[in-house]
Structure formats: structure tokens, C-alpha cells
């Protein structure tokens, strides 16, 4: 089975076994793994479930992930991942992006955000502001464009 299929199998099982009837679940959504790629030797994807959306990193061949809470450095910044373990996929690391998922009207919206998150992960972070300058002087436009539009 592919990595995506394994993750989906694990979280579909969790949905049925542990999450049924819980108010925090958005019934409009389903378990889906979006955009599997390999980052520094580790399979990376976004996991959408009816109760959360996470970045997810699978282990390399030896099957072991690092500490319980690990910071990974992506171009967009340092991301805190927590370790999990499920029989289908073994140990993995996940970074919370959204939960609860009530703001997503349908699977398509969730998928669009997941894909945008993966893309944004590789956009370099904005440059630090100069000392003495308020962080607020970095405009929203400047923030979103990685500082490229600041003149």
C-alpha cells in the first residue's frame, strides 16, 4: 500500500472506532491524505480528517521518529511536531494546522487549504524586522508575499 493509503486506513479506523458520535467531528469531511512528497528523506503530506488537519511526516526506513516533540526547519519557519503511533503506519510526527474543522464547508475547501499549506511551507519566511521597529510595520501584504513587495 502507498503511504497515503496507509495513513488513510489508520485514520478511517480511528474515525470509526474512536471518533463516532463526538461533537467535534465535522460530518461534511472525510479522511484524506493530500500531496504526498518526500522531504529530506521523509514522506510528507497533509492529513485531513473530520476533526483535524495536520502536516504529517512518516518515518524513514528504520521506522523510528525522534523525540516526542520535535521542531523541523522548513523554509517557512520552524514547525513543532508531536510524535504519534498507529499500527498501520508505525511512528509518525504531526503538526497541528486546524482543529476543530467546523469552518470547512466541504471536502473541497479543506483540500484547497491543505494544498495551499503545503505550498506555503516552502516559501521562505519573511526577513526579521529591524530592531526598534514595531512588528506591525510589516504589512499583511508584506507578510503574505514574503516581504517581496516591501519597498
Amino acid at each position: 500500500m502507498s503511504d497515503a493509503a496507509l495513513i488513510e486506513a489508520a485514520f478511517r479506523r480511528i474515525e470509526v472506532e474512536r471518533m463516532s458520535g463526538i461533537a467535534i467531528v465535522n460530518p461534511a469531511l472525510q479522511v484524506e491524505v493530500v500531496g504526498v512528497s518526500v522531504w529530506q528523506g521523509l514522506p510528507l503530506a497533509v492529513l485531513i480528517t473530520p476533526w483535524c488537519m495536520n502536516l504529517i511526516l512518516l518515518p524513514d526506513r528504520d521506522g523510528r521518529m525522534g523525540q516526542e516533540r520535535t521542531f523541523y526547519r522548513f523554509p517557512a519557519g520552524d514547525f513543532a511536531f508531536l510524535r504519534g503511533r498507529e499500527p498501520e503506519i508505525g511512528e509518525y510526527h504531526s503538526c497541528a494546522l486546524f482543529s476543530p474543522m467546523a469552518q470547512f464547508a466541504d471536502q473541497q475547501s479543506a483540500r484547497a487549504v491543505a494544498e495551499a499549506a503545503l505550498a506555503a511551507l516552502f516559501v521562505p519566511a519573511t526577513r526579521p524586522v529591524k530592531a526598534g521597529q514595531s512588528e506591525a510595520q510589516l504589512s499583511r501584504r508584506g507578510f503574505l508575499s514574503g516581504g517581496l513587495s516591501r519597498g
Partner: protein
Amino acid sequence: MSETGFDLRHSAAAFPAVENRLGLSRREFMEFCAALAATMGLPASAEAAIATAVEKAKRPSVIWLHFQECTGCTESLLRAEHPTLEKLILDVISLDYHETLMAAAGHQAEAARQSAMKANKGKYVLVVEGAIPTKDNGIYCKVGGHTAIDMLKECAADAAAVIAIGSCASWGGMPSTGPNPTGASSVAEVLGKPVVTIPGCPPNPYNFLATVVHFLTFGKLPAVDQLGRPKFAYSRLVHDNCERRAHFDAGRFAMEFGDVGHRQGYCLYKLGCKGPETYANCPTILFGDAGPGSWPVGCGHPCIGCTEKGVGFAKPVFQLATLKNVVPPASYPRIVEEQGNSSFAAAAALAAIAGAAAGGAAMLARNLGKPSEESKPSAPDKAE
């Protein structure tokens, strides 16, 4: 913290005072500035500006009023385990009136308040701890013969900034719990204008201190959300950075106190944890500098939502969190570029960027595009 770019010889010559004043080594002082920069979500380069401001700026005069409260906010500030924190708090600010701490009593105390207000007119920071009873013309809380309402209005009139510390001052908190017999109200309600709020029961001392130091460094209060809470501290749900989050994602819940799941550190949602509806940075900065686990969920108790109006002191502690339509706030803290210390801000920023970029998610995009005009603190320099 890296010492790159910091000349120790130069600093020792130029700033001997701060070491004597605070009883700290230079390294400890810079670590403190770095911690505050990180708390505020500022890049590491802001440390220098903070250090300069703390060293050189005239300490702002602070008048601290106590109304309907338990003094827990003050206690949390003073009893923090970090041995230097209370020194810093008392030295970064000039605490000119504080009923719990000042040696003066009676008329002498009230005279001290009047003279501090007069000497620092238009420049002092007013900190309010506790709710203000408004029922029956405010007779349920009087200090020196004056009602809390009158004292608050009098002190706020000439303040440069007003900060409501703790949940009681922020929206009424515990004293406003139904049936609210004294008509306990927030600072903003009594003054009729928004103020910066640092809710929490107790609030984290670093969030208060970072707010004051922001004022000291940048001459204005930090950006706030629609409830007046500094965005650097209250932009993400407790749930988002919770150390038990992986258990939630995998559906592993403690079902009752002391069961196998509870002992294994499973998610506390089913025990009533309000993490999914409460904005605060408790899971990332913890409490009291006492190491890992030093926050409610870390030691096995569900979050009671003490920083969230309508949740803390309003909902039963063990009632399941209800799901308001939680959307990412209009602006997240900026991505922090670190010098070795990692931060938790990146995931929040990514979520915001992703939401904005994905135009298809109409609800998200609408909320992310929302201007933050509605939130203005009471400082003359408006929050961004």
C-alpha cells in the same frame, strides 16, 4: 541564546547599571530580553531594542488598582519560581501604587496614588486587577470611601495606557458568575472604551510583562484581538499547541480521572477540556518557569477556558467544549526567525497563509481578510 553581535566589553562599560539594578548577570539579562521577544513573537533582532529600552528608558510609572479579585494575578507575578522575575517586574516598571505591596496604608496610600498621578499625568500605565461592581451605584466595592467605579474613572482619565489584568478585569470573570449579585463588570464596560486585556486565572506573568515591555520599547501597546487580548499571546487555541494533541488526533481520550488513558496522558476533551474553544499560549510558555508539565493540561486537568469570555466561569468545568465556528484570527503572530530557539508561531502563520491562499475556502478567506479595526486599546498610540 546566541551572543552573536553583542560586544560584552562594550556592554560592560556602557551599561553597568542594569546589572546592579537587577542583580543579574549580563547573560541572564539578555536571556530575559530574548524570552520576552519570543513571547511577543518578535524576531531575535528585537532583543537589542528591548534591552536598550529596559536599560535606558525611564521606567513607566504604574498605578495598580485592586477591585473584586483574589490578588491571584499579583501573586502569580510575584511568586513565579524564576528567582529574578519579581525583581524584574518591580524594576522594569515603577510600581507607584499597589495596595498589596506598598508599605503605606490608609490616607497615606491614597495620597501616594494622587501624587503619582499628578507627577506622571498622561504618562502612567494603569493596571486594573479585578472586576468592578456596578449594581446599586457601585457600593459593593469601596477603597478609601470611593467606589471602584469612581476610582477607575479617575485613574484612567490621565493614563497613557490601561491594561486589564486577569479574567475579572477583562470581562467580569469569577465575580460576574450568575446571578452576578454585585453587577460585576469589566474595565472596558465601565470606561466605555476598549482596553488591553490580559485574561487568565491567573494570567501568565510573561504575557503581562511582555505587554509592558512592548509599550516601553515601541511606545505603544501591542496589537490586540477583538477582545483586547495581545495577539502575540492569544492568537492560537490551547488545543493547537497542546502537548496531548497527538492523542486527540488519534482519538485517544481519557474517559474519567485516574483511568488508564488519564494516566497515559491521553486527550482530556471528554473530561471537559475547553482547549478547542480557548485562545491562550499556556501550552507553549507554561507557568512559573517550573519546567515541563507546569500548566493545567500538562498535569492532568482539563483546561477550564479561563482566558475566554463565555467559557471560563461560565461553563461547568467538566462540560464538553462546544464548538463555536473557530476561525483563525485576522492576523497571526509573525513567523519568528530564531537563533536556535524554536518557536510555535510557524504553524499558526502557515495556517493563516494557507487559508488566505485557498480562495475556495470561502469562510476562511472571509475571516482572514477581516480588518482588525475593531480592536483598539486605550493608549493614545493606537494598536496596529
